[in-house]
């Protein structure tokens, strides 16, 4: 393993202000073959999972980034003197899921899926930057169109929208629920 490349990649992931994409890495490390970069990142990520390490390199939001491990949440919060992070409300998560799977969507389409008005949840999600307005639909009233943001991927630890729970996973959950009923 190329130690020098590994060290360099670690430094770059550390200073990056957002998940460091393979494309950016390649742009900075011009001339280094993509497979070598890939191998270096993967070695780093694997090593960071070792015992005795409290910060690991994870893949999320389309790139690589540093994060603390879940086990240290309590102490981290004590140091930063902040409360436990709020989960999204059920309404917020439902709205987010509807957008994630049906994007690009309008407010009324989301409300139709949920059966309830979703304007309030949209505002919450916009504030949290989990969704964004991407334009207008060519339809009567030209409603605003929503999409999930890069923050959304990061928030749920997804690398891309392809990482959303698949039809098969969803079907499995529904099966389980029915099995419990029977």
């Amino acid at each position: 393993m190329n130690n020098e490349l590994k060290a360099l990649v670690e430094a770059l992931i550390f200073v990056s202000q957002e998940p460091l994409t393979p494309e950016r890495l390649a742009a900075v490390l011009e001339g280094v073959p993509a497979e070598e970069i890939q191998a270096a990142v993967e070695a780093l990520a694997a090593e960071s999972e070792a015992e005795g390490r409290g910060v690991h390199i994870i893949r999320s939001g389309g790139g690589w980034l540093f994060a603390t491990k879940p086990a240290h949440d309590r102490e981290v919060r004590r140091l930063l003197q902040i409360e436990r992070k709020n989960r999204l409300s059920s309404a917020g998560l439902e709205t987010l899921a509807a957008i994630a799977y049906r994007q690009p969507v309008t407010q009324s389409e989301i409300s139709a899926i949920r059966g309830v008005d979703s304007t309030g949840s949209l505002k919450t999600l916009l504030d949290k930057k989990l969704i964004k307005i991407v334009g207008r639909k060519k339809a009567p009233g030209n409603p605003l169109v929503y999409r999930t943001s890069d923050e959304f991927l990061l928030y749920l630890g997804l690398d891309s929208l392809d990482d959303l729970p698949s039809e098969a996973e969803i079907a499995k959950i529904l099966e389980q629920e029915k099995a419990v009923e029977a």
Partner: protein
Amino acid sequence: MPDPAPDALPLEGTPVRGDEAPDQAPGPAAEVPEAAAVPAPVDEAEAPTPAAGVPADGYQVRLDVFEGPLDLLLFLIRKKKIDIHDIPIAAITRDYLGYLERKTEINLDREAEFVFIAALLIYIKSQMLLPRETDLAEGDDPRRVLVDRLVEYERVKAACSLLREREDVEILQWKRDFVPPFHGEGEPEPVELSLFDLAESFFAMMKRKTADDTRIIRGREVPVEVKMKELVTLLQARGVVDFLEYFEAHESLEEALVSFFCILELVKSRVAVAVQDEIFQTIRVWLRKDPHRTAAHE
């Protein structure tokens, strides 16, 4: 950001089982699921009941247990172990309406959504009762429109339970949200551009400005002579005054306007000089009696 519905249940936090009434969370929805959703034993035949400690205002609490009418319908369908693709509309409509009738208090906003689905159920029921000569083709089933919505909603809810699991892991992992070293020169506090930010920012500015403008009316009266003296003293003390900065430093528009006319008067009477050096800069004003500066700019 506070949870917008602290009394709503984090249904997706745990797999929802059809024979189990959704249960009232003991804490805010921010709790981790292990802590938040300890299912209370519930009589299978019973509808969801609020847990102890929750004010028993009946309908309010009961309906808040559900995210909406589709959630309630799904609950009823599962409770009866009904095939979602073959819903006995008459029975489900009866159950659904029975549920709505338990209300003791009406929240109009939420009520409308529940009533809308009730109307849809009754409409479907009426369509089913119409005498027909031949059996309906599958695509013509009047229930179709409802079934499609329920199936989609069911999938969204199932996805939610998977996403909630991810959220629970991610929320415990801390990423650095401050700008790391080596930032160099550049713009502080980077913000990504979004249409919502853009629009919100504009209307917030306009509001701020309207508020400022409102204050103007109540602004104190400023005699021109007083302002003129103030301005000359300032020019003498500072040498050069940035016009825009000076203009904006005033509490009221009236006061600012008086200053503006004072400057015009001073320039007109050749006591002061006003110059705009470059296109991107504001107007700088200074007194003419400073021979050095006057010479340099004329």
